[in-house]
């Protein structure tokens, strides 16, 4: 950090909480965060830009007489004014369902700050980006190649009126590259990217190039998409995306508001016995790992779905109070780091067992459908036809559509091999509706 502020801001957030309480708030919570980052970007195969970034934010949530409001600024100089604005706004604020934050309790210890990541010099980022670009260029001089490499360091401190004072410092790096191949009006996009908190062997431009080249080669041939009700195989990144509706439906708030299609399914079977979904918030160095939610409630390993049976919903402090449930350490009632438990066959075995199927690597337009209802749909931005167990060619102009809950309860399977960073397996889904314009 060019200018570390944590010591000063630890005092400031406590002062904000005290000031809000003095002005009549029953409870108050303040958080300060500062981030610094550098990055480099390659466009058309050459270094295009390098950047330097810095940002700060101080926010204060206040609870007063059953109402709640949040005020944010990035001038940490004027804490009393911030507190006065928050208390005034809380008078006409949103409904608050508790009048105090939970007492602080012991949290897990996880590794999140890597000095080597924080010290990554700009030259190393440029070197890595260049290596990724050159690795992809080995395929062809005709490609349009881009890459982006960055590293960041952040510090944050949170305090609330039930005695919490917690500091965190984190680091992160990000390394990715892509290629665009244009042939007449036919365009292919592929690429790969990773992020992690620790500088280790994952920081590997060759991996970016290898993954990109793999797709470039697989996509050299095109094949007609199988249509009708089709079995699809989704690699880890796509699998995590396709399961997003489940996280929405397991939100305690969606359940309480009546939006969740799973609201009355607790204890019921919602999927095949091979479906187990957990929240794994304590993985060292994983970018989204966290030890507590935004109110200081410790996070913990958590099972949403156990062998097909819906086990639990996620609750933040306010929603838990409203529902008469216990807070589960989930900010905004969403997962910290959702994962799927692996199965028994490898992804290669799953593919080889397919007489006909579709590998869906990337969907365009995912999220436009009614995700809350479990409706998933999209255009296969990158996908391959599988025939007699082999990947035979890229499909084009193809749409997939299905209801996730129907799929999970059908012939669903997770692979035994998982992505080392995300912890997700490949998944196999039977009965996905596929239509194609050829």
């Amino acid at each position, binding site marked *: 950090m060019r200018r570390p502020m944590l010591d000063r801001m630890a005092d400031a957030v406590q002062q904000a909480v005290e000031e809000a309480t003095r002005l009549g708030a029953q409870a108050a919570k303040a958080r300060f965060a500062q981030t610094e980052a550098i990055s480099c970007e390659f466009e058309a195969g050459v270094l295009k830009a390098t950047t330097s970034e810095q940002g700060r934010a101080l926010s204060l949530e206040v609870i007063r007489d059953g109402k709640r409001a949040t005020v944010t600024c990035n001038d940490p100089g004027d804490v009393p004014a911030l507190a006065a604005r928050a208390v005034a706004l809380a008078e006409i604020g949103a409904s608050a369902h508790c009048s105090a934050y939970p007492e602080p309790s012991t949290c897990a210890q996880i590794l999140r700050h890597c000095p080597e990541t924080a010290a990554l010099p700009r030259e190393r980022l440029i070197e890595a980006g260049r290596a990724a670009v050159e690795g992809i260029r080995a395929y062809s001089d005709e490609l349009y190649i881009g890459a982006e490499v960055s590293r960041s360091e952040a510090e944050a401190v949170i305090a609330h009126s039930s005695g919490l004072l917690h500091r965190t410092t984190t680091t992160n790096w990000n390394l990715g590259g892509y290629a665009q191949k244009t042939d007449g009006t036919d365009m292919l996009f592929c690429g790969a990217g990773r992020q992690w908190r620790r500088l280790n062997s994952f920081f590997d431009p060759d991996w970016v190039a290898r993954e990109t080249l793999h797709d470039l080669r697989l996509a050299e041939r095109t094949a007609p998409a199988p249509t009708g009700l089709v079995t699809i195989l989704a690699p880890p990144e796509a699998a995590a995306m396709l399961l997003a509706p489940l996280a929405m439906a397991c939100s305690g708030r969606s359940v309480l508001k009546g939006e969740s*299609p799973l609201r009355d399914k607790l204890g019921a079977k919602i999927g095949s016995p091979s479906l187990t979904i957990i929240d794994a918030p304590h993985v060292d160095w994983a970018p989204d790992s966290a030890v507590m939610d935004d109110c200081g409630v410790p996070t913990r390993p958590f099972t949403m779905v156990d062998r097909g049976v819906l086990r639990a919903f996620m609750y933040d402090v306010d929603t838990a109070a409203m529902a008469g449930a216990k807070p589960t350490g989930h900010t905004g009632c969403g997962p910290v780091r959702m994962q799927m438990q692996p199965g028994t066959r490898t992804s290669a075995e799953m593919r080889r067992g397919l007489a006909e199927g579709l590998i869906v690597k990337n969907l365009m337009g995912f999220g436009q459908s009614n995700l809350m209802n479990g409706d998933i749909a999209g255009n296969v931005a990158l996908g391959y036809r599988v025939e007699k167990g082999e990947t035979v060619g890229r499909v084009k*102009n193809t749409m997939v559509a299905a209801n996730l809950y129907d799929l999970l309860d059908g012939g669903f399977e997770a692979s035994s091999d998982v992505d080392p960073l995300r912890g997700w397996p490949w998944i196999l889904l039977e009965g996905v509706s596929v239509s194609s*314009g050829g």
Partner: protein
Amino acid sequence: MRDRLADALSRAKADYAEVRFSIDDSTSVMYRGPEPEQVRSARLSGGVVRACVRGGWGSSNFDSLDDLDHHVREACECAGLVGTTATQIADAPVAPPSEHRAALLRDFRGIAVTEKIALVAAYNDILLRSVPGVETSFAGYSEVFRTVAFASSRGASFLEERPRVDLFLGAVARDGSLVQQCFDGRASLQTYDAAVGLEALAEEVARRAVALTKAPPCPGGTHTAVLDNRLAGVFAHEAFGHMSEADFIYENPQMRELMVLGREMGGPELNIVDDGSMPDAQGTHPFDDEGTATGKTYLIRNGLLAGRLHSLETAAKMGEPATGNARAVRQSDRPLVRMTNTYIEAGTATVQELIAGIDKGIYACDALGGQTMMEQFTFSAGYGYRIENGLLGEMVRDIVLTGNLFQTLHAIDGIADDLVITNGPGGCGKGGQAPLPVSFGSPHIRIRDVVIGGR
């Protein structure tokens, strides 16, 4: 503030440099179900210095002007690490030193937060209670008053106030385990009154959400489709507009060949325009975020590719005029080539004529969103109807259209005479920057053989 920016820039060691600094005052209120779920206010500042040295770019962003000299130096140093050739920046006229104060017909800053909460509460009540079958609701109001100061080493210097109010209405209906949603809203840079008087719209949103629970899914396959104004506007934006952004093209020889001006894109009736200077639209500003005046650009004229959207760099590198389309979303974002207000010009047919010619097809209405990856696009209608023997039939849901831009533009075989420009909430996303305020518009259009995903 403008002088301070220009002064700091005078010490920039770069071929080109600019600085933008903004202060945002924002307030938002959101209901979800019967209760107010969120009340927030924020005052945030932020900015970015961008420099170009020997054709390479550097930038430094920040949230306070305290250290501006450092950020100018940092941006120039960053740029110095990159460039190896020559800086190319279009020689377009620059924004003269000027101030553009907001001229709000009714200024939201003079209205008490309690009144705004009451407004949202009233809409929320309509959403929840006017139609049986609504399970829960979303109703939100947000306002932001942004003050932007900009200066560039080319002598551009302006201060602009950019107010915006958004009103968002959503209903969630349920029938057994089927959950359906409908959203709508209004946005305006002109007046708080855009958020007022939307009771009928709230009721319509509730009614449509409930109707969708009774509607079957749209059958998948290849259909002839009539798109309503809003969906056709999203189509123009998503499927074609993004392709005309020159930063996708200027350094890519194959793309330059593909998007060569004069190429036949569609029938002679097809005209597509981007206009950042039209009154009362959300993408409208006097200058873009490089200090270039905005204006009207024909992207397709009489079916032929006629122009594209540029920043100063892409214009210089392609030898085409700068169009004033370099825009940034967040305070510290670097500007990218973006659309402003994009629309298909009116044709001559009536909507009835478009539908009458179809034996079996889909009338697709409203847009839930869209995405594009160059020539492939996909977008989702909010709802629709079957067309049978030239007449509208039952309502259908889950309509996702996809296709290849080049084929689809040629497949437009009817353009109605009813152009409508939509000013809704939300906006456009690109390169991690969203939501950018844009408007889009179109008359009803008919497309042959469009692929619709469905079950």
